């Protein structure tokens, strides 16, 4: 950063004061309130919600969405988007399913392959976004199709059936739980906490916000814009790799359509979590809460024997409210 200050000395000096950010933001408080209220009502209204089986299922189902959401939050904060995560997951899942089933890979080697292949797919997205000069939604829309093609090529003309339970330690069964909580959820919590600290306290983490707020100004201020963009997509790819292992879990069937629509569920969680879709604002904590809210509602609809399609109505409503609130705040800010 010091190297470039000579050229931009008319710009205001970088403030020494720690930026005044509240530990927890407005939308997060609202989300904690809504989710907490929902849990309370469900616990009182049914005798099936507040059971270990149900809570374990919610946390486990939410984990892959939240995991990818960690990377996606960084991407969207940089004013980007990655709609290819579903296809990335398909590529990773077919690769590791075949390795586990046909080559007898154990848990850790397969996990490593998953994360590395996710990294590669994410890096390709990042390079195209940073150096291609094409809008991220177009780039990743392209790679959505290309990665799906790659996955289908690897599938050949067969789905992968009879995958053994190599990933059972992070799967949905009893062996995938520690202290009664799914390991997949512990993993999500640890990564989310790390990312939350990084985006709040590390300089390069703060730079993600600068890139999303105004990439041009960020470059003038000495932020390595391309490097930050690439890092966000690479991180998302790695998260997809982990989520793919969770999704395979105790094994079974991996179908060609696997991961289809996953991107929309992840982006929904991020947006409901208060991350601004135009970039520059958002937190991993919000995403975690957004994913939890969506997971609770999805599960509650079945628990209450309501028609399944109501889930879509609720999630749609949450997205519109979240984006509406964000736009109102933005308008108020620019009016000032």
């Amino acid at each position, binding site marked *: 950063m010091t190297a470039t200050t000579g050229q931009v000395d008319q710009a205001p000096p970088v403030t020494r004061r720690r930026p005044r950010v509240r530990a927890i933001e407005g939308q997060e408080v609202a989300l904690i309130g809504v989710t907490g209220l929902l849990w309370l009502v469900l616990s009182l209204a*049914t005798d*099936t919600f507040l*059971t270990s*089986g*149900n809570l374990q*299922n919610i946390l*486990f*189902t939410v984990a*892959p969405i939240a995991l990818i959401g960690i990377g996606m939050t960084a991407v969207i904060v940089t004013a980007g988007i990655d709609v290819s995560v579903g296809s990335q997951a398909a590529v990773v899942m077919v690769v590791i399913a075949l390795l586990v089933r046909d080559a007898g890979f154990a848990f850790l080697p397969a996990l490593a392959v998953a994360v590395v292949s996710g990294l590669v797919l994410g890096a390709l997205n990042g390079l*195209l976004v940073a*150096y*291609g*000069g*094409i809008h991220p939604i177009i*780039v990743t829309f*392209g790679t959505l*199709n*290309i990665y799906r*093609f790659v996955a*289908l*090529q690897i*599938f*050949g*003309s*067969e*789905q992968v*059936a*009879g995958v053994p339970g190599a990933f059972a330690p992070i*799967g*949905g*069964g*009893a062996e995938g739980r520690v202290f009664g909580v799914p390991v997949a959820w512990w993993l999500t919590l640890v990564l989310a906490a790390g990312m939350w600290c990084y985006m709040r306290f590390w300089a390069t983490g703060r730079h993600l916000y600068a890139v999303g707020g105004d990439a041009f100004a960020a470059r003038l201020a000495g932020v390595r814009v391309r490097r930050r963009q690439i890092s966000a997509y690479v991180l998302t790819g790695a998260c997809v790799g982990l989520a793919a292992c969770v*999704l395979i*879990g*105790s*094994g*079974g*069937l*991996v*179908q*060609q*359509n*696997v991961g*289809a*629509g996953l991107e929309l569920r992840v982006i929904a969680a991020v947006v409901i979590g208060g991350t601004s879709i135009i970039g520059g604002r958002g937190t991993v904590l919000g995403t975690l809460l957004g994913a939890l809210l969506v997971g609770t509602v*999805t*599960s509650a609809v*079945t*628990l*209450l*024997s309501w028609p*399944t*399609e109501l889930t879509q109505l609720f999630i749609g409503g949450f997205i519109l409210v979240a984006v509406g609130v964000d736009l109102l705040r933005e308008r108020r800010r620019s009016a000032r």
Partner: protein
Amino acid sequence: MRVRRSITAAVAVALAGVVALSGCSQKNPDAAAGGGGGAKRVSVAFVPKLQGIPYFEAMNTGGQRAAQELGIDWIYRGSTTADPGAQTEIVNSLIQQRVNVLVVAPNDPDSMAPVLQEARDAGIHVMTSDTDAPGSVREAFVNQATADGVGTALTDALLGAMGGSGKYAIVSCGQTAANLNSWIEVQRKVTAEKYPNAEIVDVVYAGEDEAQSVAMAKDLMNAHPDLTGLVGECTASAPGVAKAVTEAGKVGQVFTVGLGTPQSMKQYLDNGSSSAAILWDVEQLGYLTAWAGKQLAAGTPLQPTNNVSSALPAVKWTDSDKQLLLGNPLRITKDNVDQYKY
């Protein structure tokens, strides 16, 4: 700088295009064989809902075997996405190729009807197989099983395992899937009439998504602690419900059956979480489709009962709705699952 950037962009787009195109063209090796050539052999083209899933690949295997035995050309061409538009394009290109018989398993029966009319106008015999296009000009529909057959087989298999009574729930897939909904209708009816002590407590829809059906099956077990049965209504949710029971540690307490392909159900049939999979012999369905195509092209009228092959000695034909029925559904258990390689 700006110029270089746009060149990079152009190259990237071009590369993406090349990859996508090579993907399309590579998938249809049979097409050339069927299109060219001046041979007088009858050509029967089958367009599945989508290519690359084991179900339709097994149909293709049966169709190819029939083609060899019956001396016809069998063309198998489908899209890699279950997209009505992509399917229409493939059908149009087959019309251009002037195949003798065109068989479609339509993704969207309504939008397929006018395309079938075009084929008919071009002098091509048209059929449907696996999924019908009611109200279209198709001359025959090869029906794998009746709704009564599937619905009854699913109900009997599940209640056999549940001891004839108890609460059960259904994890279905697409909410608008007409065939799945018609099976569920029959399951409701059979359960009410034949098993007065059994009850369907809920029907949920997980899309064609295995992970989602696992989650919803667990939700159902949590919502109804006294649940003793689950049905997976499609090839995604059949292994899904069994996986949920396995993971919840409720093998032997909650019984499942489903409409699943044999190899995807094998591990659950073996561990006891799935009592039976109901399906039909998909290869025979492909065989029958090719056979029916040959009869149409030759103008041979179908009989009320047809001797197709040694495996299909009495296939029923109903002239009023022009349906050819494969037969009774197949019940796949841990004892016979290894006979089926798909």
